[in-house]
């Protein structure tokens, strides 16, 4: 790639970031202004939250179990097997559950939103909605973004619970720890500063998934080929934004002394 190509690519990225920020600003302008599409919001919550639960639950279970089984030999080397529940709980609650859940949702929800809105865009259904007097942004975008913002923290909470339960199973695979003792060890190690930043972070992850998915779908071009590209790029960009947000969140919690 020559220099002009690099410049063009960089310019395109800057433009895309600018449009994404503008799109987010438009969402915040529309989000708190009536009229609210409650029925559509509930439907989107059902689709993006409830229907993502099985995937998130299986992933969280596997992550909790694998993390426990993999960490045990290292801790056993230091004679610190009793710290396994605490270590897994802190890891899951602070980092693994929010990030893994967000990535799973970026793949599932981001791609579905991008593809759905993209196909509506290329089949001019969005234009038709505008012509019929319906605000397509409010009906299609705001409801979807709100649903991801609301559902992702719930999915993260359930993923936390499932992963910790899987950890309990993992701990008992090579030992015998009662649920009461396990629960004591987990909640002795956790503090509010572990839970609340993770939940706040998952709200921003939900916002990122919804905004990127809707932006990519809402700005789909070039027919059905563009729909596939929108779905694909929605997943890639949302995942990238999730990692960037996670990095920022770590720095913020560090500065605030919550680590």
């Amino acid at each position: 790639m020559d220099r002009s190509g690099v410049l063009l690519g960089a310019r395109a990225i800057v433009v895309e970031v600018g449009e994404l920020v503008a799109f987010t600003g438009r969402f915040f302008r529309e989000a708190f202004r009536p009229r609210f599409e409650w029925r559509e919001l509930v439907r989107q919550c059902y689709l993006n939250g409830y229907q993502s639960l099985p995937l998130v639950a299986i992933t969280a279970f596997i992550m909790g179990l694998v993390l426990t089984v993999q960490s045990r030999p290292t801790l056993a080397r230091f004679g610190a097997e009793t710290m396994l529940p605490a270590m897994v709980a802190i890891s899951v609650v602070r980092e693994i559950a929010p990030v893994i859940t967000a990535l799973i949702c970026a793949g599932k929800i981001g791609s579905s939103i991008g593809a759905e809105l993209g196909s509506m865009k290329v089949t001019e259904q969005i234009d038709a909605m505008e012509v019929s007097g319906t605000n397509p942004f409010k009906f299609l975008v705001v409801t979807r973004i709100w649903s991801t913002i609301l559902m992702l923290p719930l999915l993260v909470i359930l993923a936390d619970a499932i992963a910790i339960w899987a950890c309990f199973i993992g701990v008992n695979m090579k030992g015998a720890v009662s649920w009461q003792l396990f629960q004591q060890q987990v909640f002795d190690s956790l503090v509010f500063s572990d839970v609340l930043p993770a939940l706040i972070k998952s709200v921003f992850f939900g916002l990122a998934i919804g905004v990127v998915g809707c932006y990519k779908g809402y700005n789909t071009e070039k027919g059905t080929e563009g729909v596939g590209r929108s779905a694909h790029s929605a997943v890639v960009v949302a995942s990238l934004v999730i990692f960037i947000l996670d990095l920022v969140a770590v720095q913020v919690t560090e500065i605030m002394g919550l680590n």
Partner: protein
Amino acid sequence: MAELRGSAFKLGAFVLAGITVLVVGLYLLGSKRDLFSRTMDVQARFNEVSGLRVGNNVRYVGIDVGTVERITILSDTLVLVDMMIRLDAAEHIRSNAIARIASDGLMGNKLVSIEPGEGNGTPLTDEMELRTGKGLDTDAMLRSLGRSNDNVVVITEELRDLTERLNSEHGLIRMMSDSTLMNDVSFVVAEIRTAATNARLLTERTNTIVHDMQNGQGALGALIGDPVTDGRVRDLIANLRSVSDSLLFVSQRLGSFAADLDRPGGLTHTLTKDTTLTRDVKRVVSALDTSSTLLNEDLRALQRNWFFRRYFKEKAKGKE
């Protein structure tokens, strides 16, 4: 419509499940931090808190009874720690309890450990200040451990040297492996044992004799205990003292006599130290020798003289 209602139900169940998990989790976290129990504030002043942080546990006789609520620096050597203690636990803590900074295991979090004090104290009241004691200083432990390690190194090196010397050609271990030497040593030990037995018997017998003597038993005891003998011995000692005095007088006289003899002009001094006299004596002796030789010749000549020949013949016949 029915489908929408079914979806709403599932969504509602999903949301309720998530919120329930969140609420239960937060409640459990809060209960661990005593957010939902009645508490009492207690204070303690420490010289240093060794990394204690707000939220660290407070333990009484090993049981978690509260948390650290606030840490305030009062001066360069004084830190005020405010603690929140559950009321149900606080009623067992007395005013004479002692608070210390401790650690949850060797590498665990810092905590405030409250221990019962000696004697009786009044029940704990709100805002009461506890006495503090010096906690276990991990840094001091490590410093002490470092010194111990240095000592162990020195001891190990000395042990190695000792072992090498013991194991050397003329070392003890080589000597111990020599069967002849061991036999000799065994013999010597047996001899020492016999000697020790004899010494013990001798001591016992001596003790018996001394005991008998003290009690006036036996010949020596009777001798020591007899008043007549005692008087005689005293007389003997008095006589000995008199003889000793006489001897002393005589020896003094002899000394004086010897000194007179040895004085210049005295007999001994003249004989031993006067060289002129010595020469004269030698000359006299020499003259006497010469005179004696001449006299012998004269006498032999006299024997052949006719006047005395008859006398010497008769004398010879008488001998025969």
